């Protein structure tokens, strides 16, 4: 089945008991078993069965199945947030003394996790400009256990050469972890281009309406867990084969850290997925048109959208994303004051820390989601003081354009 169909029907064929066509919300903590032996068998892994919602839940199972099918992977674990997904996936793989190579232009929350939290536990991350694959090659050493990139760096808006980086990782015997939040499986399936593990913040385009926080980890099925430098997973693969990563993830890391989604939130993600394909088409179309409009505006200093023909990443957008570059762009108005004035003058666009909503959203990254980093760090992450990040919504384009036009005019108006 195609993505448009899987987004609606994947992972759930209707409730056999009630006939409900929407996925029922199983708002329960635990699951009764008919006999003591049945529960003992479920606990021992001898028999499949739900035990406790921190480990698995039927509503969340439907979401995991749908995401597995959309990413064409072998399985998924849904989480309480995108950060829970990143943390759980990475912590299943690394231990003290290990190293990570990560793209420099990734989401600030992930940078903080790697640079601050994981470093406290003895895991060192080397951040490199991932637009040039040779930088990753140079950073590789015998301690490196994984490479982490985003499909389009947020907010750097760089597009790594994902197939080349996958090849590099596999030659080194380590997995490539790819955050597919901003492209979604509708625009890009990282597993088809060699990625081993795909992570998502489902709070963004997948939810699509800014109503629930969530995340997901998908095993794309490319990495051979029977080999590789992960003792705990390699040992497990003797019993559960290629499911070893997912099994370890769910039954150890996920269970121990407690990052499970609320069933209601899994339901909201399932609803969001149903309209993801047409929404992504409109996000991409509106973003490209807005990027072109901003690029032609005399008061706009710069525009960064990989779908622009002038972008150094345009060829990769064509090759990897079949020409669609997502709904996110950044642009500059010369200084921080004008960026603030622009944001304050918007009537339609909402000033908030999120992306992927049906509504157009804006944000000043340097003073908000990247506010904890100093000027040098901001520079290496591609965040400038005048940068405005825009998550282009699916409203009528002429209304978005008119809103931006009047707000730019106000930002450049002489103050009396």
């Amino acid at each position, binding site marked *: 089945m195609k993505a448009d169909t899987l987004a609606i029907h994947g992972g759930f064929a209707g409730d056999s008991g009630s006939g409900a066509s929407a996925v029922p919300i199983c708002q329960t903590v635990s699951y009764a078993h008919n006999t003591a032996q049945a529960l003992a068998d*479920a606990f021992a*892994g001898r028999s499949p*069965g739900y*035990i406790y919602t921190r480990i698995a839940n039927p509503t969340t*199972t439907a979401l995991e199945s749908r995401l597995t099918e959309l990413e064409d992977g072998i399985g998924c674990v849904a989480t309480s947030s995108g950060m829970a997904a990143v943390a759980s996936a990475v912590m299943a793989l690394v231990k003290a003394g290990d190293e990570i190579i990560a793209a420099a232009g990734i989401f600030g929350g992930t940078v903080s996790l790697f640079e601050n939290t994981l470093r406290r536990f003895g895991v060192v991350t080397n951040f490199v400009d991932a637009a040039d694959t040779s930088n990753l090659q140079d950073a590789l050493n015998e301690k490196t256990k994984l490479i982490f990139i985003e499909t389009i760096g947020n907010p750097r808006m760089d597009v790594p050469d994902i197939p080349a980086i996958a090849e590099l990782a596999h030659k080194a015997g380590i997995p490539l972890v790819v955050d597919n939040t901003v492209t979604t499986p509708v625009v890009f399936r990282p597993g088809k281009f060699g990625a081993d593990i795909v992570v998502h913040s489902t709070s963004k385009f997948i939810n699509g309406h800014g109503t629930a926080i969530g995340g997901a980890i998908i095993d794309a099925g490319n990495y051979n867990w029977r080999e590789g430098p992960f003792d705990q997973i390699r040992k497990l693969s003797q019993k559960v084969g290629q499911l070893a990563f997912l099994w370890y993830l*769910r039954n150890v890391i996920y269970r121990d850290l407690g990052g499970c989604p609320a069933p209601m939130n899994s339901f909201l993600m399932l609803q969001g997925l149903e309209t993801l394909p047409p929404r992504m088409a409109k996000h991409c179309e509106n973003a490209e048109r807005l990027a072109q409009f901003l690029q032609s505006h005399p008061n706009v200093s710069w525009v960064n959208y990989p779908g622009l023909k002038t972008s150094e990443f345009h060829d990769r957008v064509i090759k990897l994303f079949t020409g669609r570059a997502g709904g996110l762009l950044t642009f500059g108005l010369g200084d921080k004051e004008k960026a603030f004035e622009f944001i304050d003058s918007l009537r339609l666009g909402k000033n908030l820390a999120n992306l992927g909503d049906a509504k157009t959203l804006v944000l000043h990254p340097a003073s908000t989601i990247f506010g904890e980093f100093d000027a040098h760090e901001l520079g290496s992450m591609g965040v400038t003081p005048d940068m405005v990040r825009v998550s282009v919504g699916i409203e009528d384009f002429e209304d978005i354009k008119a809103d931006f036009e009047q707000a730019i005019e106000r930002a450049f108006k002489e103050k009396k």
Partner: protein
Amino acid sequence: MNLVVNGKNTDISDSMTVTELLAKEDVKMPQMVSVELNGQILKRSEFETTRLKDDDKVEFLYYMGGGTCL
């Protein structure tokens, strides 16, 4: 023909797809099962199109809970 299903020899009269085998074996929680065929996990989209052959090794696997087999 003979299949090895979860380590046990299983005779089936005719070749069948993975979907048909799941029904024949009456596997628990079929929406949750992962199928490993000769050491490789099948994508769910391959269940209906993958036809089993003589001496194939099939494992039904779950990663949904339980935690003491480490």
